[in-house]
Every structure is written in structure tokens, then in C-alpha cells.
């Protein structure tokens, strides 16, 4: 297998995609339904088997209590952060959740953490890629919103591991998009990327310089996107229905999902039409009808899209730039198809934004470019290098519950800071450190990332030990901490209690296709596929034996076929897919004349004019073979 194969994945709120560099161009790998977009919906069917994507969408309407969408909103968050989301989304939280514990969502009577649900989506993308390449895929670059905090990033990385992927890099979505754009533009200047997706908003300002993509400032809102527009429209419809028809559907999950589906369709149509007519059949047969004009729609969503203005202004301020100094504006994310959003961006940056790349695909394409760079690069990506920043300041809690910022937001990553700690009591062996992320003055207003306990400080008088603690934000935007006692030179031990994350052990326990087993799993799937193929050819042979053509074969030919049939039968039970395949090939070859005779004798109109060889398109494991084709008679 090609161990250097790295795919780029856009794990989106609404849709997810997988892409790779085909020669010098990034391309999206379609799913088995032929679609480039995999809806980020996960459901459990009646047999508790996970269903992902379009198939899961049906469950969303029929068995909403067994399906979940927009799980990205819950990544890296605790029960106390999601009270608002739970009101707006049909997330069914497990009842026994404790404060500070990783969330668990109910699907049917089972519960899953958000990283596990995301892992199911990732595994589907991984399988799509494996089917496409005909070999195992174990390495990936995954994109995250630029404004994701440490916990949200860590949760994404955990999801990758659970899905059996080695996540080589987390890349910020707007930065990835700029890579895809920069690939064919190759010019220097200042670029602003405005990324309004299903659930998140990012603004990034980059300086392009001879292939270096240097992010100068980034800002955003990890809970702002098309979902918010959908929820607003749903709320209005539910209020309407309650008022006009005296029908309270708020607790009727199926009806709410039917309305949601209609509203999303309406929202999309209103980007190209001046008005739309809603006609939704409600439980009990009554219709809900209403006309919405684009003007009304734009008035409704104004407060939502206006929330993107503050982050844009802050990013410009942090970059020390005026809007006129921006050379290009790039639009990313499905919600930027809304004309009103485009108008807002044009107004903000005083120039027409670029829309040449599909806003749904550009992030995945950029992830593929970054994957290519990590894999050693190619002619197309030569000289390309991404210098990204940390979106939020990193701080530690000091006396009085105040945040002392040690790495400021918009610092290029990797970035580090060193702090020195000492003891306050003679012989004190432990020191506690509280790490925070955010811009606020008080620790309680910042995001708690983790509490570290420095342990094993050698016994000394108070104030004598000098523990050097190094905080390092890596190229994924994830914090790493190391500590050393300088007087004794002893490596101090650090115990991490992530505030909202899975422990290593928990992740290990969740791994779907264990990393080391990815090859094994793939091999096993190949065995299963080869066996199925063997079954098909053996069945076809049985049929052939009953046909008139069989008697036209010589005894020797019949003997040979019998021998090969026996061989395939024997090897089919074993786990060696190569051997099975070899036996299939042999039998295929050995029955060639039989197939030809069958064709000649029973010239079916369906087969007429078809060349036998045409059927062997070399599609790998599932390619049909001549014998199976004869079944068409």
C-alpha cells in the first residue's frame, strides 16, 4: 500500500467531505451515492447499526429520536455550555451527565460522546476514500474552524483517532480555503477569508508572500451559521402554526423535522428567487401555507448575519489594517450563497468578493493541499507553507482569580511561553496550575482548559524550588505542557485534568477500527469481498453446467473445470484473499470457452453486441467477471 497517502477532510457542521491531490489538482472523492457531500447526520437503525449521511437523513424525519445532526456544535463542550443549543436543537442528552463530564447524546437507548459521533462520519469518509483507492487509508488532515478552542480541537483529534485515522494536522478552515485559492492564483497580497458555514463563522486575514500563507489575524464565532437561520425560520413557523391553527408542535419531533426540511429548502431557494410558497402538510392533515419574500427573509436574518461584523472589525483591528488595504476577499461556506451575506461582505471590505470556487468544497480541497505539503509536496505545492495563528490568548490563573495572559491571540504557531513556579510552604511537593483560554480579565470568564498538578518537587524550604513550566501551542493549535525543577534538574511530573475532554484511556476504549488494525480490517474486507465474488462465480458455474453449452465441452475441459472449482471451493474458506482471487482468476480463465459457448448458443438480445472483455473494467474487488455476466440470459 502507499503509506504516504494522506487525505484531507472537511468535517463540517452540515456536510463533510474527503479530498486528495490527484497529480497537481485537489479533487473531492465522492461517496457511493455519487455525491461529493456527505451530510453530517448519524442515525442508529432498528438493529442498532450506525447509518451515516443521506441514509441517516431519512431517519431524521421518521425516527428523530434515533438520529443526530450538527454534532460539531457540541464538540469539546460541557453540559453547562450547551443549555442554549439544547433548546434550539433536538439533542437528547444522557440524563445522568455530571458537570464537567464529556457530553453524551442519546440515539435510541444508546449513548455516544460527540467525538464518537464525529468518528462515525470520519469513518464513512475513510471508507469512501478506501473504496476509491482500493487500499487502506490511515492518515488525514482534518479542518476545524479557526476560532475553535483547545478543547474543541482536541475533541476533533480524538474523533480522528476513534475513526482509526492518524490525524497529522488540524488545519483552520479559512486557511485551508486560502490554500485552495492560492494554488492557482500564486500572487502576493493581503487576503480576507469570510467563512460562514452551517454552524460556525470565521474571519481570517492572511498575507500571501511567495508561497507563504501567513495568517495575521483571525476571529470568529463557533456558534453562528446557517443553523441559526434555520432555527429562526422554524421558530417563526411553529409560532405561526400555534397562532393560526392552535396547534402546538414544539414537542412533536417528527413535525419539527419536516418543517426544518421545508425551511432549509425555502432558505436555499430564496437565494435565487424573489419569493417562495411554503406548503407543509402537518400531522392531522392540515396544511401550513405561507409566502415568504426575499425582502422579508433578509429582514429576518439581518440580526444573525450582523453578528459577523464585530469579528471582522476586530480582525482588521488586530491586523492593524483598514478595509481598503485588503486586496482580495474570498467567500467560504454554504451560507455565503445568500445574496444579503454577499452584500454585507462587499460593504464591509469595500470590494466584490471572490466566489470562483464552490464554497462547499473549497475547504476540503485546501485540506488536500495541506495533506500534500505534509506528505513531502509536489510541483504544485512546492514552496507553499502555512503559518497559522492561535485564535485565542492562553493564560494562567494568578492570585485573585485574574487571568495572566502568557501567549496572546494571533501569535504565530507553534508558540511557547515559559513560567517559573515556586512553593509557598516548606517541603511542599505539589503546585497546582490552572490553564485558561480567552480574552477576558477574570479567570471565571475564560475557558478553563485544564488543571495541572506539578508533583514530586524535591523537599526544600519555601520559595527555593524553581519549577520551569513550558507551555507550547503546537502547529495544530493544541496546548502541550512540560515542567522541570531547575534546582534539582528533576523532571517534575504533570497530571493533566482536561476540563472537557476525553482521557487517553477513554479514547483508546472507543476506537472503532483500531489504528494498528486498519490494515487488518481492510484485508478482512478484501477477504469478504473476494469470497462474495467466489460465490457468484460458483453459482454461475452451476447454472452453466445445466446449460446446453456444457455438453459441448470436452471431457478434459470438464475435468479441468471441476479441478479448478474444487480448488476455489477449498481456498474460499481460508483468510487469504490473494489466494481466493487467484483461484477465481483461474476458474474465470478456465471457463472462458464455456462462457463463449453459452453466448453462442443462447444468443440473448441483452448480451448482443457486448464484448466480454468490456465487462472486465478492472474496478478491483467488485469488478464483474465474464461468468457472472452470463447470468443475464
Amino acid at each position, binding site marked *: 500500500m502507499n503509506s*504516504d497517502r494522506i487525505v484531507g477532510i472537511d468535517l463540517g457542521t452540515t456536510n463533510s467531505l474527503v479530498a486528495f491531490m490527484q497529480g497537481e489538482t485537489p479533487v473531492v472523492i465522492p461517496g457511493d451515492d455519487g455525491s461529493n457531500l456527505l451530510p453530517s447526520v448519524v442515525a442508529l437503525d432498528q438493529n442498532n447499526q450506525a447509518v451515516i449521511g443521506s441514509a441517516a437523513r431519512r431517519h431524521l424525519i421518521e425516527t428523530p429520536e434515533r438520529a443526530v445532526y450538527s454534532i460539531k456544535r457540541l464538540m469539546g463542550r460541557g453540559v453547562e455550555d450547551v443549555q442554549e443549543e439544547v433548546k434550539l436543537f433536538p439533542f437528547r442528552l444522557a440524563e445522568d451527565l455530571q458537570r464537567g463530564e464529556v457530553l453524551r447524546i442519546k440515539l435510541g437507548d444508546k449513548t455516544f460522546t460527540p467525538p464518537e459521533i464525529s468518528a462515525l462520519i470520519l469513518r464513512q469518509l475513510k471508507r469512501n476514500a478506501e473504496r476509491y483507492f482500493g487500499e487502506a487509508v490511515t492518515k488525514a488532515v482534518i479542518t476545524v474552524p479557526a476560532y475553535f478552542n483547545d478543547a474543541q480541537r482536541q475533541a476533533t483529534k480524538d474523533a480522528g483517532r476513534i475513526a482509526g485515522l492518524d490525524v*497529522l*494536522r488540524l488545519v483552520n478552515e479559512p486557511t485551508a480555503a486560502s490554500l485552495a485559492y492560492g494554488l492557482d492564483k500564486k500572487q502576493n497580497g493581503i487576503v480576507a477569508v469570510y467563512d460562514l458555514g452551517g454552524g460556525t463563522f470565521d474571519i481570517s486575514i492572511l498575507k500571501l*508572500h*511567495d508561497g*507563504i500563507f501567513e495568517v495575521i489575524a483571525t476571529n470568529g464565532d463557533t456558534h453562528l451559521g446557517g443553523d441559526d437561520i434555520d432555527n429562526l425560520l422554524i421558530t417563526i413557523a411553529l409560532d405561526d402554526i400555534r397562532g393560526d391553527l392552535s396547534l402546538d408542535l414544539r414537542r412533536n419531533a417528527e413535525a419539527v423535522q419536516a418543517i426544518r426540511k421545508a425551511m432549509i429548502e425555502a432558505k436555499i431557494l430564496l437565494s435565487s428567487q424573489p419569493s417562495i410558497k411554503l406548503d407543509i402538510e402537518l400531522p392531522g392533515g392540515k396544511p401550513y401555507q405561507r409566502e415568504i419574500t426575499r425582502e422579508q427573509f433578509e429582514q429576518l436574518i439581518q440580526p444573525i448575519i450582523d453578528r459577523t461584523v464585530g469579528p471582522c472589525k476586530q480582525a482588521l483591528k488586530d491586523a492593524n489594517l483598514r478595509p481598503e488595504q485588503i486586496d482580495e476577499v474570498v467567500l467560504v461556506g454554504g451560507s455565503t450563497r445568500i445574496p444579503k451575506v454577499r452584500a454585507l461582505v462587499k460593504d464591509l471590505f469595500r470590494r466584490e468578493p471572490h466566489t470562483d470556487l464552490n464554497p462547499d468544497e473549497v475547504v476540503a480541497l485546501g485540506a488536500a493541499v*495541506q495533506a500534500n*505539503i*505534509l*506528505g*513531502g509536496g509536489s510541483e504544485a505545492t512546492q*514552496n507553499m*507553507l*502555512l*503559518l497559522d495563528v492561535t485564535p485565542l490568548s492562553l493564560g494562567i490563573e*494568578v*492570585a*485573585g482569580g*485574574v487571568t*495572566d495572559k502568557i501567549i496572546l491571540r494571533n*501569535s*504565530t*504557531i*507553534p*508558540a*511557547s*511561553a515559559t513560567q517559573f513556579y515556586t512553593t509557598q510552604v516548606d517541603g511542599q511537593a505539589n503546585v497546582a496550575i490552572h490553564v485558561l483560554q480567552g480574552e477576558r480579565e477574570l479567570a471565571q470568564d475564560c475557558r478553563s482548559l485544564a488543571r495541572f498538578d506539578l508533583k514530586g518537587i524535591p523537599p526544600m524550604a519555601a520559595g527555593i524550588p524553581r519549577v520551569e513550566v513550558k507551555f*507550547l*501551542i*503546537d*502547529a495544530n493549535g493544541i496546548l502541550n505542557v512540560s515542567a522541570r525543577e531547575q534546582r534539582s534538574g528533576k523532571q517534575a511530573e504533570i497530571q493533566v485534568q482536561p476540563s472537557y475532554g476525553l482521557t487517553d484511556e477513554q479514547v483508546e476504549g472507543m476506537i472503532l477500527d483500531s489504528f494498528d488494525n486498519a490494515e487488518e480490517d481492510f484485508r478482512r474486507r478484501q477477504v469478504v469481498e473476494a469470497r462474495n465474488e467466489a460465490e457468484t462465480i460458483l453459482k454461475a458455474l452451476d447454472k452453466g453446467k445445466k446449460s446446453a453449452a456444457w455438453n459441448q465441452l470436452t471431457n478434459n475441459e470438464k475435468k479441468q473445470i471441476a479441478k479448478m472449482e474444487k480448488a476455489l471451493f477449498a481456498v474460499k474458506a481460508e483468510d487469504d484473499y490473494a489466494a481466493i482471487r487467484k483461484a477465481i482468476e483461474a476458474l474465470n480463465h478456465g471457463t472462458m470457452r464455456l462462457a463463449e459457448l453459452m453466448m453462442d448458443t443462447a444468443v440473448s438480445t441483452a448480451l448482443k453486441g457486448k464484448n466480454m472483455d468490456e465487462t472486465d473494467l478492472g474496478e478491483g474487488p467488485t469488478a464483474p467477471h465474464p461468468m457472472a455476466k452470463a447470468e443475464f440470459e
Partner: protein
Amino acid sequence: MTKSILTTINTKSVPEETHSCWSCGAMRAAHFCESCGKVQPPVPVDYFTFFGLLPKLNVDVPTLEKDFYILSRRLHPDLNARAGSQEQEWSLEQSSLLNDAYRTLRDPIKRTQYLLKLEGVELEEQSKTATEHARATGEVKKQIVPPDLLEEVFELNMQLEELRMNKKMGEDEPELIEEIGKHKVTLEAKHEALLEELRTHWKEWDALVAGSANGSTVSPEERARITGKMVDVLNRRNYIRNLVRDVNAALES
């Protein structure tokens, strides 16, 4: 390309330690090996030395940026993703050091503060102990009001207070805002003047560093005299910067 990289870094007259590359054995490896390109283990050095610079305060920022890009292309983890785990670790450490150094040196104020820290000087106004003490006791931190600004600051604070009161009452007073705006212009001009003053001290410092590199002895008193002046300018500058921030906040709210 390899040549130009080390010309920018090596032509500077810094007594540079030469090592042999851990991988290919060639001499003169710095952050990466000139010969085989491998990232070298990080050596704990100050930010100036990292860029091959003497600790001078006049820094040519465009050249610094160029060196930053050149070194990024060698040290960044993305370009060492296929190396062994030890090399990847060095790459992570080296590039974080590079980023920290570039961020500090390209900014005139951060650069000066960093040099003062290297010289063992702590700025009173910014010192963490002072800040923490003020926060813990609730005392107002000692502010150094530049004497020539006493009157101006007094008047401005009165007007800011008035503006806040009026805003609370929902009243609009364009005249007051105009007055405050005038103060802001004065303060900004003062801020500029202080930066200019700081640059004259840079010159003095750089001359001293150049002399020292040429073998002349510099007394600790002389060093302290110059750093003392810079501390004084920085403290006054911080005071004015905070004042401008307050004015902006009052006008924007």
C-alpha cells in the same frame, strides 16, 4: 538558495558556535544543516542570537522578515512531517522559538522590553508583582504621570468623567466630545515624541554594543545609565497609551 540563507545569518559578526550536523556530520550547522537540510537540536539562546544578531535595538524589520520566512521554510513542522519523531520534536521547538523571537523583535516596544529583561531590568509599571499586588489589595497601581502632562491629564480625567455621567443619563454632548478629541490628538503626538526619544536611546545603546563587540570595555554603570533612560521612556509611554485607550473606550461606548 542554501547559500543566501546563511549569508543573511552568518555574515553578521556574532561569535558563532559551530557544530557538526548530527545527521551528515558537516560543520557549521546552525538551526538546520546547510549541507543536508536536517533540523538541528535547539540550543537555548536569546532571540537576538537566534537570528544571528547582536543585541542592538535598531533592527531592520524587512530583513528580519526575510530571515523569518527563510528559517520558517526549514524549521516548520509541516515541512518536517515525514522526519523521525526526534527531528519532529526539534522542529516543533525550533519553530516555536523562531516564532517567539520574530514576534518579539519585529515590534519596537516588545524588542526594547525584551532587551531590558535580558539586562535584568524590570519595568515597575508592568511588573507582574506590582500588578498582582495592586489586584490583591485593591489599591490603585502607582502610575507615573509625566510632569509636563499633569495639567492636561487632570483636565482630561474630569472631562472623561463628565462624558461617562452624561452617557449614563442618555445625554449627548458634541462639544465635550470635541474637547476630548483634541486631548486625544495631543496625547497621540506626545506618544510619537516619546517613541522618537526612545530611538535616540537605542542609538546610544547600539553604539555601546558595537564598541563592546570591537573589544572595548563597557562599565556596568554605563549600561545601567542607558537602560535606565529607556525604562523611564517606556513607563511614560505606557501611561499615555493607557490614557489613549481610556479615551477611545469612553468615545466608543
